[in-house]
Structures are given as C-alpha cells and as structure tokens.
C-alpha cells in the first residue's frame, strides 16, 4: 500500500514537471540558433533567441514590474559511462523595466550595468534575442580526443520577481517561462 502511494506520488510529480517544462518550451522562449566560432583562440558564441511571452508578463512589465531574464551557456564535455561535465559556463542577465515618464522600456545589462531604452518590448527583446560574440572560454581548455557540445537556456528569473508574483510563479508555469536546455554540437 505504501509502495503504491509512493509510486503514485512519483508519477504525479513527473507528470506535473514535464507538462510544465513542455508548456514553457513550446510557447514562450526558444533558442533558434547557437553559433560557435573560434576567434583568436577564443570560443565565442552567437545566440539567437525568440522571446514569446505571456500577456501577464508583458502586463507586469508595463505596470512597472522589473523582470529579469538570463541566458546560460555551457560548454560541455561528453563522457562515456558517466554524466557529461561542464568545462566552461557563461551567463548573461538582463533586467527590463518600464519607464512611465518616458514611456520607454529600459533594458539593463547586469554584466556591465549598461542601460538601453526601447520604445517597445519588441525592440527590447529583439536586442537581447541577438547576442553576439559571447566569450565562452579559451580554446586551450579543449582536449583533442574529447567530444564537446554547447548548450544554452534562456529563462525568466522567477526567483527575482517581486514576492507576490514569485509565489504565483510557484503555482503557474506561465510566470517562469524557459527555453529549456538546447544543445548544439561543436
């Protein structure tokens, strides 16, 4: 009886987990392209991301809620008989908020603190959806006899939402859109 209850709980958890992931990856954020270039012994990544957000998030931004998006890029090494490992990681975080006085959407790159204003959300997401020359690692860390691949994930940082919305995000996947991990071979 206890085993049956435990199994049922696991099945319910997996169903909820995968349904939310599938929902998020299908409608919200998707990584369209990941281009890896070796420039001057550096591994650079160009990334094209499509942000299709729920109206609730757009409304929240338009009402002055600051929303944070993050792009995680990992260079991973394949391993036999064991889990793959990450050899280099890169994160780009952008915060977007609405400036009521100027009716502009302000995008802040948290890496360098640069701000840019956009007249609409489309322009703002277009900007953070085309990230070029992201320095991932030096080519020196690569081993010749190993297989590598790059994977990326863009998502809304629900943990940085204001508290009332954060609690909502626990119960609604609409408030935590994510592209899920998308891999490209090198």
């Amino acid at each position, binding site marked *: 009886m206890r085993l049956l209850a435990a199994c049922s709980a696991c099945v319910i958890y997996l169903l909820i987990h995968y349904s939310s992931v599938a929902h998020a990856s299908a409608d919200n954020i998707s990584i369209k392209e990941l281009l890896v270039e070796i420039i001057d012994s550096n591994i650079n990544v160009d990334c094209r991301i499509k942000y299709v957000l729920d109206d609730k998030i757009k409304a929240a931004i338009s009402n002055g*809620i600051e929303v944070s998006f993050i792009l995680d890029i990992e260079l991973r090494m394949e391993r036999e008989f064991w889990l793959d490992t990450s050899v280099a990681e890169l994160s780009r975080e952008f915060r977007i908020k609405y400036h009521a006085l100027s009716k502009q959407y302000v995008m802040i790159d948290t890496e360098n603190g640069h701000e840019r204003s956009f*007249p609409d959300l489309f322009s703002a997401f277009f900007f953070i959806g085309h990230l070029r020359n992201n320095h991932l690692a030096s080519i020196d860390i690569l081993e010749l006899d190993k297989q590598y691949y790059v994977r990326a994930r863009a998502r809304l940082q629900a943990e940085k939402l204001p508290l009332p919305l954060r609690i909502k995000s626990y119960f609604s996947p609409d408030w935590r859109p994510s592209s899920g991990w998308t891999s490209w071979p090198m």
Partner: protein
Amino acid sequence: MADVKKSAIRERWWLAVLFAALIAAILLMADATQSVAYFGRLHNWLLPINTVLLAIFLGLIAYNVGQLLRQLRRSAPGSRLTLRLVLLFVVIAAMPVFIVYTFSIWLLQKGVDSWFDVQVEQALQDAVDLSRSSLDLHIRTLSQQAAPLVKQFVGADSFNATLTINDLLGSTGAAEIALFDPNNRIIASGSAEPTTVVPQIPAESVLQLASQGESYIALEPVQETSFQIRMVFPVPADLPAGETRLLQFIYPVSDRIGSLAENVQNAFGQYNELIYLRTPLKQNFILILTLVLSLGVLFAVFAAFYWSRVLVEPIRELVEGTKAVAAGQYHKKLVVQQKDDLGLLVASFNRMTERLTVARDTTIINQRIIENQRTYLQTILEHLSSGVLSLDNSLALKTINASASEILQVNMNQFVGKQFMQIGVTHDFLKEFCLSVLNKLKQTSEEWQIELEVFTPQGRKNIVCKSVRLPSEEESQSGYVLVFDDVTTLLQAQRDSAWGEVARRLAHEIKNPLTPIQLSAERLRRKLLPNLAAEQSDLVDRATHTIVQQVESMKLMVNDFSDYARMPVMEPEPLNLNDLVSDTVELYKGDQQNVNITLELDSHALHIRGDSVRLRQVLHNLIKNAIEAMPKGQKCEVGITTFPFDYSNSKYAGIQIIDNGPGFPEDVLPHVFDPYMTTKQKGNGLGLAIVKKIVEEHNGAIRAENQHGGGAMINVRFPLYGYAVQRDKPRLGAKAK
C-alpha cells in the same frame, strides 16, 4: 509502567515542539504583514516552515484517525468516548478559527486597499503628466531646431557628413549626432564627449519607423538619474533609387530636470508597481493566513486527539480493569499516570483490587477450612451408628446420614428438602414415628428424648430419639437436629439375659428338690404298695405314678430351661445350607402320614459358616413347630425354600418355611420369639426363643409373619460365607444426595 510514562512524556514534548513551531509561524506571519519588504525577506522561511508543519500535522492526524478507526472497528474500550471528545474539541476549536479567518480576510482586503489612495494616485499621475508636458515642450523646441538640419545630410558622403556633424555639435548643443545607413551601419558620427567613440545604435523599431519616413523623437532615461532626448530623422535620398538614411540627434537633459523627473518617475513607478501587486499581495496574504490557520486547526485536531487520549486513557484502563475484576482477575493493577481526579480514581481502583484480592484469598482459606470441617463432620456422621437428621425451622429435612436410612428402613435421601411429615405420608409404618417426633418438636424447644416403637417391614424396632435445637444467629442456619438409635437388639439382649438368669435360677432351684421328691414317691410306692389293700394299693399306685410322671415332666422342663440358659461353645465350620436342609428334612419323610414337606432349594450351593448341630436344631424346631401348629386331622403342608439375596450391600442365604396352619395370633406375633411365649398346651415357650438365639449366634436374623392366604411364614437369613461384608464408603453430603 516506565515505558508508558516515557511514551507520555515523549508525546508531550512533541506536542510542545509543534505548538512552539505553530506560534513561531504565526509570529512570522504577524511580522510579515507589517511591510511588503519584510514579508519578502520572511517569505523564504514562511512557506517551507508552514509546509513542513502542515505535512507533519496531516501525517499525525491521519495516523491518529487510522488508529481511532481501528479501535472503533474492534469496539475497543474508550474508542467511542475518544471519538466524541475529538469531535467536540474540533468543533470548539474550528468555530472561533472560522470566525477569525473570515474577519481576517475582510481585514486584509480592507487593510491592503487602505495602502492606496485615489487622490495620491491621481496626484502622481498628474505629476507624471506635468513632467511629460514640460519635457515635451523642451523636446518640441529641440526638434524644431534639429529637423531643418536634416537637409544638410542629403547626398552627403561620409567625410562631408562628419564635417557637418562636427559643425552642428558645436551649434546645436547636441551630445551626439550620427548618420546611419538603412542597415543601421554608421556612416558618420560625432560626440560632444571625446570619450564616446561608438554612437548609440537606434532600436529595431526606430529603424522600421524611419524606413517608413517617420521621425522618432523620444525622451530616454540614461543610467539612474539622467535623461537624454533621442531624435531620429529619415534623410531623403538625393537620387530616386537612393537609400533613405537616418540622422540621429541625442540631446542631454539638464541634471536638475533629470533629477526632478526621475523622482516623479520613481514615485509613480513604485506606486504603480504596488497597485499592480495589490491583488497578488492580498492573495498571498490570504494564502499564508489560510496556511497558518489551517495549521492552527490541524494542531487543534491533533491536540484534540492527544488530549482525548490522555483523558480517556484512565477511563479505558478502568474499563479493562473492571472487566478483568469481573472475570475474577483481582491482581489487575492499573498505571497511575496522572495526579488529578482520574488518577485518584485509578489509585482507588488499585486499592479496591488489593482489598478484593486479600478478601478473596481469605474467603478461599475459610472455605477450605469450612469444607474440611464439613468433610470431617460428614465422615463422623456417616460412620455413626446413630441416625442423624437435621430440620430447618419449617421442619423440612436438611441433612441426613446413612444410618438414618438403615434404622428407619427407607431411603431418606428422597426426602431431603421436603417436610419431615412427608416421610410418614409416604411410608405408613413411619407415620406414628413422625407424628410423635413432630408433636414433641412443637411442644418444646428444649432438649428432649423419647422411646418409640416402630413396626417396620422387617419387624418391630425400638428407637430412642433425641432432639436438640440448633442455635444460630441466621434464620437459615437454625433448626433442629434429631439423633435416634435402634435399641431393639439392646433391649432384646437385656431381655434375653434376664430370661436366661431366670431360667438358670429356676433350673437350679427346682431341679434340686425334684430328685428327692421322685425318690420319695418311688420309696412310698415300693414300701406301701405290697402292704395295702387292692383299693388302696391302686390309689397309691396312681398317686405315686402321677408324682413320678410329673417330676419327670418337670425335669424335662428344667432341662429345657437349663439348655436355654446355658451358653455352649459354638463350633462353626463351612457348610452348604442346601445339604443341611435336605439332611434334616430327610428325617421327617415316611414317619408321619399327615405331613408333606416340599423342598425348593436353590440350584447353587449356599455356603455359610456355622455349627451344623445347632443349625439342625433350628430347622427341627421350626419344622416341628409347623407340624404341631396344625390342627389334628388335617394334613400339614410345609414348604421350605432356600435362596441367595442381597441386603444392604451384603449377600445372604435365606430360608423360608411356610405352612398351611392357622398362623400366629396377631397379639402374639410381636412376641413370638420371647421365652415362655406359646400357644400350645404342652409347650414350654422356649422353642422359638432358642431358635432365635441360635440364629443370632450365627450373625443371622429371623422374622415371623402370617401369609395373606393363611399360614405362618418364617424367614431366616445367614451371611453367605466367602463374601466379605461390603459397605459403602462413607457418604459425604448426604443432603445433596
């Protein structure tokens, strides 16, 4: 006992810890409602703590509910009371919680809404509009200044455009001027700040707007507290097929204006954010409140289970203890877990069981003592030769002993519990005995003694009966006890002894003068007879002859007396009674014409132990008695039967002699075996007395009675030789039997 206490202490600790956690959660909740920021900081703790508590309470309650259901299914003692108490506690706890919850929801709605003011909101909106108007005026002035400058860049190449830009930077006050191609590539640019190398690229939507020939003029925030004005104008191509380029001006806004505008923006932005978050915030407060109150209710339910169990436990133990005591387990001890009234009750129960145990042990010991005494008395009673009866106050028979049945010749066990008079009603020959005893009992309550004569089927019995009242404080134990003895044999022995003494003296006193009388008579006859005349001689002859004859007769009578009084030494030996009877009867065959003796002997040999000479005398006397009893001229029919029989657990050989004579006169029958009791003219009355004496010397018994159809019947019995006399074991509890 120690385990139970440890378990109770552990449970109380758990309850205290859970209660402390609940209080902490409520306090956190209370603190969290003070401000949104504080709520945000505590939120990370509130949810996990409450969730964990919720899971713990739900688990504990589920466990307790399951336990209670199992107890209810098996109808465990106290389970129904526990259910009632739990329901009562839950209802008592839930009602105020529900009221508080409803009131809190209402208060939350009103409280959060009170943070916002319509006037403040309108004021902020007005401030924003005012700022916009002010800035728009400034922007409009600048755009009117910048718009005509676009013509200077029509058809200008990169070099000329750069020169123009540098000129304009100085004259227009712009912070940055840049010229872009349709693909947003820089053709020329210039900045008032020497450090700025790369111009700010316009956004994608601006490019689209410009491509459609529209200008873009907007105030843009820069960094935290400053603004800039971006103007993007399409630059018409100098040729029809040429590309439309974009000219971008960026004007700075003064720090003073920027600072003021930012203040307005910050205030409006924060207020707008709060308004937007109002609904989710209320939802969150309600969620947390619901969570905490749910915890409160669950804690109350769990506490209800705990306290119900604590309250019911002593009662349950008492129920089990009472059942155990009812089942005779007086050693049952209950654990005193509490020092309250229920604990006192449990302690009292334990004292009661202790006393019951002592009382039961004492009772058992007393019962054993009483049983032993009863057995002892019963054994004595059963082996008493005297009959003993006890009667209650209503004169109903309570107890008897075996000798009572033997003496009265009835089975007395059937009368136990019945009225004493019922014995006389059932057995007619005991009617006089019962009436006499009852009369005596009614006459006096003192000790008394009477001698009664009872005519049982086996003959007359002399019974000496004594009675004494049984003193007792209890009515059920009081009554009478009757003790009676069969003194028939004793009286008979005394009579026989007296008659023997009489006979011996009579023989001695009479026999001595008889010889001189006889000698004197013969001498007279010898001396006088020859000398007297014939007439006188004849007289003397007759007189002396009579004297001699009577003396002889008297001698015979004296000899009989002598024989009766003499106690010759008996020489017993085993013999067959059938042979003895046959040999004796053989002597009578052929001698007498008017006598017919019919023998009916048992097919089996009847061995007895006795003196054959004396037993022959018995048979001779009895046969002779039968023959002599027959009137002259009538034929005497004598029947002799031998048979074995059981009587009073002993085996006997019986002889029955019947005749066709007149039988015994009724007034003589009771004394037929007494000496000198005869109905014959020439009899000395010693025949049957001697017979009885010989029979009794052989441990036998003799009884005389008349047949219904006429004629006498003599029954004699002797113990069979070779059969030990078997008697019942001492009978205990004759009353019950």
